[in-house]
């Protein structure tokens, strides 16, 4: 089993609903976020393009945050989801530095926090909160080992990219272009 998410940049309007839904679902304190929006504008008026991306932890197969964690708090669970065990985290911040996607933040309670792919929902067969709330339905989630999963189907039928492929992390967050 390998969980992955695909973000349809052709449909995302950058509304930030994924960010708020994550906040309320996961009790992310005000002022912090586990997912965020990137708006990339290219060109000059009137020849312009915008790419809108809802970003979060890439749940990398080869995760630098896990490799560099001195206590083993950062770890990979079934389905390839990268998690942080709060009680084992000493808040040293090495993982924050090592992440090429800027996906982690120091939680005010002293540990490092980030997207869990809503593992508490996923283990019950539900989607992450951001996927279920998105008004444009631009987020696709599922098991890459299942060819009939939503994410497998869109990755098969659409062009896609990943971020910072040169980092060699083998990320599991895909962007449909």
């Amino acid at each position, binding site marked *: 089993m390998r969980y992955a998410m695909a973000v349809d940049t052709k449909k995302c309007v950058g509304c930030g609903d994924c960010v708020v839904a994550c906040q309320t679902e996961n009790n992310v304190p*005000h002022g912090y*976020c586990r997912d965020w929006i990137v708006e990339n504008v290219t060109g*000059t008026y009137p020849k312009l393009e915008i790419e809108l991306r809802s970003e979060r932890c890439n749940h990398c197969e080869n995760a630098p945050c896990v490799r560099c964690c001195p206590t083993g708090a950062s770890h990979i669970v079934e389905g390839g989801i990268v998690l942080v065990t709060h009680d084992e985290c000493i808040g040293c911040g090495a993982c*924050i530095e090592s992440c090429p996607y800027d996906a982690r933040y120091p939680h005010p309670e002293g540990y490092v926090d980030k997207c869990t792919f809503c593992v508490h929902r996923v283990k019950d067969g539900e989607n992450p909160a951001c996927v279920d709330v998105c008004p444009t339905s631009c987020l696709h989630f599922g098991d890459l080992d299942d060819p009939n999963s939503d994410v497998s189907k869109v990755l098969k039928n659409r062009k896609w990219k990943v971020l910072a492929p040169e980092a060699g992390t083998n990320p599991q967050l895909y962007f449909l272009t």
Partner: protein
Amino acid sequence: MKTRRDFIKITSAGVGAAALGFHALSWDSAAAQFIANGDTSPVSDEELTNYPTFCEVCFWKCAGFTYVDKKGNIRKIIGNKDDPHSNGRFCPRGTGGVGMYYDEDRLQTPLIRETKADGTQYFRKASWDEALNLVAEKMNKLRLEHGPECLALFSHGTGGKHFGHLVKAFGSPNITAPSFAQCRGPREVAFTATYGEDVMSPERTDIRDTKCLVLIGSHIGENMHNGQVQEMSEAIDHGATIITVDPRFSTAASKSKYWLPIKPATDIALLLAWAHVLIYEELYDKAYVEKYTFGFKELKEHVKTMTPEWAYGITTIDPNVIRETAREMAAASPTVLVHPGRHVTWYGDDTQRSRAIAILNALLGSWGRRGGFYNPEKVHLPKYPSPAYPKPKRSWKDAYPPGKYNLVSEVLSTGICDATIPNADLDCHLRGWIVYGTNLMASLPDQKKTLEAISHLDFLVVIDTMPMDIVRLADVVLPECTYLERYDPIRTSPHREPYIALRMPAAEPKHETKPGWWIAKELATRLGLGDYFNYNTYEEVIDWQLKKVGSSLEEMKRIGVKKFNREFNDLYFLQDLDDFEFNTNTGKIELYSTELEIEGYDPLPKYTHHEEPGEGFYRLNYGRAPMHTFSRTSNNHNLWDLMKENSVWINPKIAKLWDIENGQYIWLKNQDGIVTDFPVKARVTERIRWDSVYLVHGFGHTNKKLRRAYGHGASDSNLVSKVHMDPIMGGTGMRGNFVTFLKEKPEKEVKV
């Protein structure tokens, strides 16, 4: 290390990477409290209890459920999958509605304005009894001395219905909402003149099934009208062609096959040139036009010279692009939708622009057709028994000469202001206002006039959940609880299928706040109008109404949303050219409007040149951001996290000319010398034309009680001091204001 806690990161190749939004901040008291409770892990839905509601953060009113944990804390709000407004997917504002409930700056108790011996004024906390007695006393005095017609109600939102009922029972017809004269009014009047029916809310636009969607300045995706955003996304999936006309590269423009970067204030020329191409290339729906329309010959003659080349000189849009886009529309016809927009009070000839849009849709045969405009149905809930309303003897219209605004279908909010300012022709001006759920300082243009009208009032009562700017001007403030803490009227709105939705409380009202129905009923009792509120709790009203349509409060508490069958099978009522008589003078779709002709207006829309900015000035355009609703959400912590201030969008060429850097704070000054109260951040971006600037509406709050929102960003409403009145329906055109830049904090020159 890169900047981390940005909720929104904006990068641009043209001006170098820039990050806007939210910077790392230390955790504040709210977070501290939160953590002290030990609630740092998500809770599974099984441990939560949910209560049906429908959202009140905007007018789309999506139905969903409020989830409450065992301690009684509201944890989240999730859409109801059975609701066609949201399809189970709330927008960021609906999801962030919890922030409205938890906002530490909420109004907590009734407040009464007091004046000290030295003349300074302040608000004193009061009991409900004292505050309600005072309001009732003032209303009674007004009724006895001047007549009940001297009372007006400004209202926005579901709870306003309770106060509308109260004011009608009191005997006044002056009930208004800014949603007409400051928003969709021109569209409703224009479509009614053309088709005998208006566009309604939610709009009867079949975006879901369209093959070609044309947006005239409508920025779907930034205006987060949930159902429309969802349907546009579906249309993208289906491969629909999107054509967006906007001087700004909007999010919708970035999703479009064609973006027409039009010169502001020239849309009518483009619309008429499109009509020209459709007619003279014989691309229009001939059978439809022949069967249903009146005045085609006149229209054909009217647009004869309005070629794409003619329009090019006005709009700066390449004539070939005008032809090509017209042909795209025709190729999709009748499965095409030239969207009527929603906020359409721009330049003062807005009814005529909306007429041109209505005419284009008729030429394309899209009204009453799949992928165009459908025929919505709604459930008609019987009215709860109550005595007949008294017949008012006067109205706000007395402030105008007889016959003016004959086509106005709702009360003009600006008309209420006019009727409040005394003049020789008016035997009695309005003397009391109740303002419910609308921050008039931001929702009305020309703040000077609003303030003048307020200065003539005997009393101003404001009912709100938050200390908005208008609250500062009130004599009495009545704090309502949020929509998550109260019952309200059943939502019944027109859609493809008729649906109803229930709002019920998920928590007790915080502080000393009360539901709107209770406030209205208590006032009514004190005014001797108790018969009009013949119930103990609002649940009785809802249950009575629901039982009349075959449901019950008990059932709705379980399901939240209920679907009914359509009475008539006529969703696409003109699909097969069925016979139909339109509710117009000729019984036809009036391309040539006999109604406008009778009233002395142009029966066919004409392009008129609008004033342009002088040297060093730029047209002020404004719009919406998806995470905020007007000015009402700026202090909501969840949404403030996403966007805490607006910025002024400036084209890089202009920024270079002024030596303004991206991210620099500047002040804006308009053509009347009005300067923004606070500095606003420059967003130097290729997404805006060089002749205009852009602000997201609803920022620059002046009430310090809004501790997060106060002082952040610029108020566009403050800068809209020049109003271009639509002579047909009294709409306030607000896009004819021009601003220049000040790089230093100015001395106070003109203070409104």
